[in-house]
């Protein structure tokens, strides 16, 4: 029983290591190089990364993010299970707090034996991330945070209390 529990813990922690949260802008080269070094010897033939960069538009100085980690962790672990069925793994890094224009707030990655699975999975993973991950975005304008409601998506099943 105890051994089973230990393996379970190792498994969960192992998944969560593939989800990294950082204060402020992401150090893209450091994160993506680490992912490459961590996984290039694991016989994955395809390693794909998507890097999101904050654009200078509508007079913003940058973006700011709040994250609810307990549900983000369970969302990510569900994706890890989905990837595992296809022999793949998913990776993710995201910023908390302020991220200035022309720096990165989000990196997603997929490693899989062959390219087709990785190409398809990164698309689904990033789209579901935008629709479901419990992260809230604010524009930084004149030093103040303004919630980006018009660019946000209600989580599936929202509104049951209305």
């Amino acid at each position: 029983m105890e051994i089973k529990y230990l393996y379970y813990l190792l498994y969960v922690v192992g998944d969560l290591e593939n989800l990294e949260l950082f204060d402020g802008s992401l150090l893209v080269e450091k994160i993506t190089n680490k992912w490459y070094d961590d996984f290039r010897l694991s016989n994955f033939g395809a390693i794909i990364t998507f890097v999101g960069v904050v654009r200078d538009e509508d007079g913003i100085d940058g973006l700011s993010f709040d994250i609810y980690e307990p549900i983000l962790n369970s969302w990510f672990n569900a994706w890890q299970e989905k990837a595992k069925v296809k022999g793949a793994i998913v990776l993710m890094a995201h910023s908390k707090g302020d991220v200035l224009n022309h720096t990165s707030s989000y990196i997603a990655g997929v490693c899989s034996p062959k390219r087709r699975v990785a190409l398809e999975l990164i698309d689904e993973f990033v789209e579901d991330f935008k629709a479901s991950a419990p992260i809230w975005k604010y524009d930084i304008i004149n030093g103040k945070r303004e919630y980006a409601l018009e660019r946000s998506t209600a989580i599936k099943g929202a509104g049951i209390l209305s």
Partner: protein
Amino acid sequence: MVRVEFLGPIGKEPLDLDISNLNELSIILKDDESMSSWLQNSAIAVNDILVQDKNHPLKDGDKVSLLPPVCGG
């Protein structure tokens, strides 16, 4: 008591309420003007699991979270 947390931009202090299901929470929050624009677009989690049933039972020590529309990345 059930703790009710308002996440992200809702910006409301947590509440501790004596309620036994989500329907009772709905009745209380509908009387709160500051929540009027959030109830229709917020998802609900009980103990960090998303739920979609308004009759979901609640017990002493449960945590309810309101999650407004999201936009990561």
